[in-house]
């Protein structure tokens, strides 16, 4: 089982320019630990002081906000496309 992780430009300074990663993590906490090992600088950037993903970063799985899928408990599926995107307030 593996899935793709897509990163915004703001993150790639910590990933040697890579905009996509391939992961085999079981869930979101697993993905964060994986990033801790592979790109520690990125992990520092995306985590808050409690080790959780910062509240201004949204995570989407196949276009759906991971919070609607169970958040940390969501089990990544083979072929999932996971996106990390800084939240934008918008304005209609």
């Amino acid at each position, binding site marked *: 089982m593996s899935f793709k992780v897509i990163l915004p430009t703001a993150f790639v300074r910590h990933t040697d320019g890579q905009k996509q990663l391939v992961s085999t993590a079981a869930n979101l906490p697993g993905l964060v630990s994986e990033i801790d090992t592979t790109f520690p600088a990125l992990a520092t950037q995306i985590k808050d002081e409690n080790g959780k993903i910062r*509240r201004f970063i949204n995570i989407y799985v196949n276009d759906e906000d991971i919070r609607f899928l169970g958040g940390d408990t969501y089990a990544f599926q083979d072929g999932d496309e996971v996106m990390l995107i*800084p939240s*934008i307030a918008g304005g209609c």
Partner: protein
Amino acid sequence: MEYFSSVYELKCNECGKRFGNRPLSGCPDCFAPLEIAYDLEQVRGKFTRESVAAGPHNIWRYAALLPIPEGFQPDLPVGFTPLLRARNLGKRVGATNLYIKNDAVCFPTLSFKDRVVSVALANAQKFGFETVGCSSTGNLANSVAAQAARLGIKACILIPADLEPAKILNTLVYNARLVRIDGNYDHVNRLCTLVADEYSYGFVNVNLRPYYAEGSKTVGYEIAEQLGWKLPDNIVCPMAGGSLIRKIRKAFNELITLGLVEDKPVRFFGAQATGCSPISQSVKQGWDYIEPQKPNTIARSLAIGNPADGPAASKMIQGTGGWAEDVSDVEIVSGIQELAETEGIFTETAGGVTTAVTARLIQQGRIGKDEVTVAVITGNGLKTTDALAGRFTHLDSRAVRPRLSDFAAYLEELDGATNQKPELEPAGAY
């Protein structure tokens, strides 16, 4: 794509880092939304009641407190919309000092978005963008398209596919490139962040957002000036992204700091549709965060399920002793009709939300009946006539022969029908 100003620059409110002036909306370190910070001492003594009075009758009278690049020559007379004493609506909802800030007649495209777009596009030009754009549920699309046309800049606008036809037409007429996205506003917004990453577009509510948001302050300056340089007791403001309500407060605070108004506590009340009420829920629960929602409401111009300014708006409302409420789609339509019937103002669904929430807050006693309360109406009803479909049977009524006797008989018939008509359900009564 950068410029220097001695008066203002981008600042992260979370970590405090400063970034000069460039097209950037989020802090590269902690990802919090950036805002414009001013050195108010630089304008002290220059921005006075007299200097404002000598300015043009539009938002540019407040240019000294807007992030406008040096040398920019304002062109469009945006803003300075009426502040109306709403005696009739007040009587109906039980308030004696109720005012309507009527941005349903904002120039040029009939919504408060004209204010923010004019400030964003001034910066887009300075940054050298050849194409500007936005993610929008309509009002913003209309304004970007119109003002880009006037400035001779290309526009590319992304909208949710199911938008009201009037809002689509009102964008296409300016020859903007319009892309309908199969998804809701949050999907469109997310795509725009990706597009802004890849294309050299100036998205007014993405990479130009800090500048854009400052345009909202002009609503606050105008309210204070139109009340005779006094602050109201309460503001009732619709919330989508959660930006406008905070910027009105920022405007009031700047006026206090610069000595144009006396300091006094102003309570801020937020209005949302129940079908998309993440900020209202946050306030009601006393949270410092928001839980995202999937929007399902006719108030599409407020349908942001995951607003990044939501936590800050919730915190600010709670800090002022205010509150937030949300109303059903039925109440929204009643609110539209109530404002039209009592004050002759035809607002869109977002204005129905604000009117219905104002009524409810007064009924709950959260807003005192004699307090000076300003309800902020942000858009025009001509853009969302679909919301009223089926509301008026007269539209399908038979035509009357051009004879006096037929006319008289018809009036009698109508009076009979009107007498039997049930009373309009008062907005906010649920």
